[in-house]
């Protein structure tokens, strides 16, 4: 199975994503330069963390117009799994592939620490292997992760069960103290209506080995591997039926 890791000028977690998928999980991964116009034979697309275009103007604002993004949009609209991590999440928001926007952290500080998030729903491409309510410990590293959307949009996200990760304390309670950036409703990650595009501020790819302080992030990649093999299975059945 092949992961495409999109590389924007200023991406800096592309190697972490590549390492997690190849070295830790034993899959294939290919770097795709943002000026490329093909995702090749990718089964999963990862928009990695970093500072695409130096975060000039707004985080993700310029990266969303990179040539590869048209292809990422097509891939997502065809149901392909797309994971946006940190800056990748910000790019997905600017691109309109996920609703809402990011504001500067409430504290105006760059927050770099491990946080706990609660898995709200396990029926997305990247949380299939999770149990609802499961807590994951992953690092964050961002200055603009203060998720914002109009109240009616937030209400719709909650109603559609699109809020997938919420910042909580160790007991799984979404308290204000456990919210590192001021995100509305402690939202740490959300998915699209198709449940195949997911963005989150924490870094699962940096939490794939115990030596790094946590291996909780692995479950997102294991989930999508299961989702893709299930999807291929269904496609094979569909071909067979014809």
């Amino acid at each position: 199975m092949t992961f495409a890791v999109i590389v924007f000028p200023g991406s800096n977690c592309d190697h972490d994503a590549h390492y997690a998928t190849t070295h830790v999980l034993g899959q294939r991964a290919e770097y795709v330069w943002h000026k490329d116009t093909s995702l090749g034979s990718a089964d999963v697309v990862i928009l990695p963390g970093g500072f695409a275009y130096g975060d000039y103007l707004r985080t993700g604002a310029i990266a969303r117009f990179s040539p590869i993004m048209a292809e990422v949009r097509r891939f997502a609209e065809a149901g392909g799994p797309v994971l946006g991590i940190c800056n990748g999440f910000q790019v997905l928001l600017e691109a309109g592939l996920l609703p809402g926007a990011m504001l500067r952290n409430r504290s105006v500080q760059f927050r770099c620490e491990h946080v706990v998030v609660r898995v709200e729903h396990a029926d997305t491409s990247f949380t299939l292997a999770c149990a609802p309510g499961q807590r994951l410990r992953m690092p964050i590293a961002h200055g603009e992760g203060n998720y914002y959307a109009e109240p009616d949009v937030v209400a719709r996200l909650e109603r559609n069960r699109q809020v997938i990760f919420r910042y909580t304390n160790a007991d799984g309670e979404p308290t204000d103290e456990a919210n590192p950036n001021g995100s509305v409703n402690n939202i740490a990650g959300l998915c699209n209506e198709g449940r195949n595009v997911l963005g989150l501020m924490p870094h699962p790819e940096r939490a794939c080995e115990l030596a790094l302080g946590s291996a909780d992030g692995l479950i997102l990649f294991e989930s999508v591997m299961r989702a893709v093999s299930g999807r291929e299975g269904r496609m094979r059945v569909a071909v067979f039926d014809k």
Partner: protein
Amino acid sequence: MRARVFVTLKPSVFDPQGKTVTDALHTLGYAAVKDVRQGKYFELDVDAPGAEEARRLVSAAADKLLSNPVIESYRVEIVDEATR
């Protein structure tokens, strides 16, 4: 043609930077400053036949790139070369 674009956070959106600047001004004794909202200012040099065309072009650019309509609004001013 010269255009100015002012991008500001919508009134309903919390501005952590503006709040920090407000607090700093209070620390400096400027108690009369009740609130600060921080925004962005752009100057665009535009090749357009007239002010209306320039405004249309710049507004489109502001919609598409200079502002994020989820959190920001903008205002465009066209400055005629002759009066500059």
